[in-house]
């Protein structure tokens, strides 16, 4: 693969890397005909991000995808700590860099970043990459009952009110309003901390579609990278989600790039008992499966015709160069409706306050729907009925019913 990014694009590319760095410690590079995909996932597999730059973004782009195997189809995994310093100071890049060339050298297992700077100075960075299975999360955002689209300024202003240390927030949506509030799981934290809550009317959004009233709690920190990217680029941000427990996808797109961040959400304990939560899942899922149009709630914003798919589900399905199988929506829905024992108590370190270990208080659970990862450390013999949404590309079976996370 070889591509060249001209001056203004280098800063955008760098900002994308910054956003991806907020998510995980590793960066997957996947050059395909459709463009260059950069992906990252966090260690708990509860957050995933993907930036896809179309060939138009580049001054020159050749993915070098020839016939079938090995000719240049690369699955390239880099250490984020090695890549981020190259783009750390965006102001300097803007000032100094004329162009950036990225090439993948297969025989040597190296990715080469070459910056052509002012005054004829050239900076070349060769870094080794790991061959890896392609990373891909599949999330049928077009099937989500709830959709919000907002200008980046609006979202930026909203999250600005939450302290930088705020881990999680809860977004509540009803036909009348959208609520954002800080979330604290610990009783003691609830007493000590400052709570922030704000409320917005549907009319503040560019697009407002409520299929099911829901409260979703997700990690704000991981989202900030994308919001910052959207703001610097002036791109509106879309959010697709459903009931609590299902992932939420935030996405942006323009002519030459698409980006999305998919986050797992907490099953909200406050409004229902765990067993009820399970059942509540099913109806929501059924509704989700059945929804082709937003029939559930009145849509108060001046949205256009009530189509579920107002815009393409950005970035959700990117066939990896490996050609790994992509989920069909119906197969996925079958899994969702099969409620099963909700014994999947995957408590990820991210959602646990430091030092508390991975014990799960009965009142809250994290459903890592993205990757169906089941931690067998939990030891209670839980079997996941959840599909793995990320499959390693060398599996044959379409990834159904995998008991362990593919990654």
């Amino acid at each position, binding site marked *: 693969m070889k591509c060249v990014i001209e001056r203004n694009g280098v800063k955008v590319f760098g900002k994308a890397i910054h956003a991806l760095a907020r998510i995980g410690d590793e960066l997957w590079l996947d050059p395909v005909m459709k463009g260059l995909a950069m992906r990252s996932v966090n260690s708990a597999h509860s957050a995933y991000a993907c930036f896809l730059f179309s060939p138009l973004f580049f001054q020159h782009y050749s993915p070098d995808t020839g016939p079938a195997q090995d000719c240049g189809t690369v699955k390239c995994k880099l*250490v984020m*700590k*090695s890549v981020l*310093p190259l783009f750390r100071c965006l102001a*300097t890049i803007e000032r*100094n860099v004329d162009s950036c060339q990225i090439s993948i050298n297969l025989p040597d297992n*190296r990715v080469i970043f070459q910056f052509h700077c002012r*005054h*004829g*100075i*050239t*900076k*070349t*960075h*060769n*870094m*080794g990459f790991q061959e890896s299975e392609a990373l891909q999360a599949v999330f049928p955002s077009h099937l989500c009952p709830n959709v919000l689209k907002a200008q980046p300024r609006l979202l930026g202003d909203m999250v600005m009110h939450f302290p930088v240390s705020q881990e999680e927030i809860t977004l509540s949506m009803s036909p009348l309003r959208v609520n954002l509030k800080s979330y604290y799981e610990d009783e003691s934290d609830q007493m000590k901390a400052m709570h922030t809550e704000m409320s917005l009317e549907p009319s503040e959004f560019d697009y407002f579609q409520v299929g099911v009233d829901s409260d979703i709690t997700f990690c704000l920190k991981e989202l900030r990278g994308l919001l910052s990217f959207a703001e610097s680029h002036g791109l509106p941000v879309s959010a697709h989600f459903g009931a609590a427990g299902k992932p939420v996808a935030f996405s942006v797109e323009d002519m030459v790039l698409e980006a999305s961040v998919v986050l797992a959400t907490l099953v909200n304990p406050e409004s229902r008992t765990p067993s009820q939560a399970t059942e509540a899942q099913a109806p929501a899922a059924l509704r989700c499966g059945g929804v082709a149009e937003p029939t559930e709630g009145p849509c108060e914003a001046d949205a256009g015709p009530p189509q579920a798919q107002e815009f393409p589900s950005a970035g959700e399905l990117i066939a990896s160069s490996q050609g790994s199988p992509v989920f069909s929506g119906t197969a996925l829905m079958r899994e969702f409706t099969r409620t099963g024992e909700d014994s999947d108590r995957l408590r990820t370190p991210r959602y646990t306050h430091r030092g508390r270990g991975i014990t799960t208080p009965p009142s809250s659970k994290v459903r890592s729907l993205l990757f169906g990862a089941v931690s067998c450390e939990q030891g209670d013999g839980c079997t996941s009925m959840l599909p793995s949404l990320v499959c390693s590309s060398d599996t044959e079976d379409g990834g159904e019913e995998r008991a362990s996370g593919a990654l």
Partner: protein
Amino acid sequence: MPLSTQSQTEGDNYVLVASLDNVRNLSNILKAITFKDHAIFNATPNGLKVTVEDSKCLQANAFIQAEIFQEFTIREDSVGFQVNLTVLLDCLTIFGGSTVPGVATALRMCYNGYGYPLTLFLEEGGVVTVCKINTQEPEEPIDFEFCSTNVTNKVILQSESLKEAFSELDMTSEVLQITMSPSQPYFRLSTFGNSGNAHYDYPKDSDMMELFQCTKTQTNRYKMSLLKPSTKALALSCKVSVRTDSRGFLSLQYLVRNDDGQICFVEYYCCPDEEVEEE
């Protein structure tokens, strides 16, 4: 000046008296070579030379010419002593490091000779501080035998272009490799770190390149830990000359302008880490 009355009480035994209206003209330069505790001071009628060494492989010198001082009186041909540089800098900056426009700290530095402490009188806004720092027997600075006749390659660069490179250097690399050549890549800095290699190339016709005199291709490696302190001198400077001799020894000379626009020099000498075959 209040300081001149002070000195009379101590007698007129000074072998060296140096005064500055703005102590920063000395302290800033000394900060650029403070990577070890001890410094060798050598004063001659030409001015002051301060030397710091590390592991017999690295030597840094700061030169402050007599003309920089408002008063520079020396009663011998050469006056030498050794002091703790960290302590000296703490004293020189005793009124704080921040600059308020129009307010400067004045310095009068006095030395009575062998066995006597170095006495500093510092004054700001009418407040006077007197510091006496113990001196030691000066060691003989290493002579790296770096002479201009032996220089094979020399470039002079504007510091601005190097500052960025040095601040980005991959610190997981044990060595900094410098390649100088009459042909491509002309002048190259390379690191070999955990994540991979990095190369910074400066072409000979770059407008940052003020002088380019390379006679043969040479590649030498220097321990990163030894060269990293030179970044401070680089940060202060406006130009830097990089020279290597036939043995691969490196000389970095930095042209520093002080607060008053006067020129001082800082130079670093470094031994090569290992011999790399010349192409």
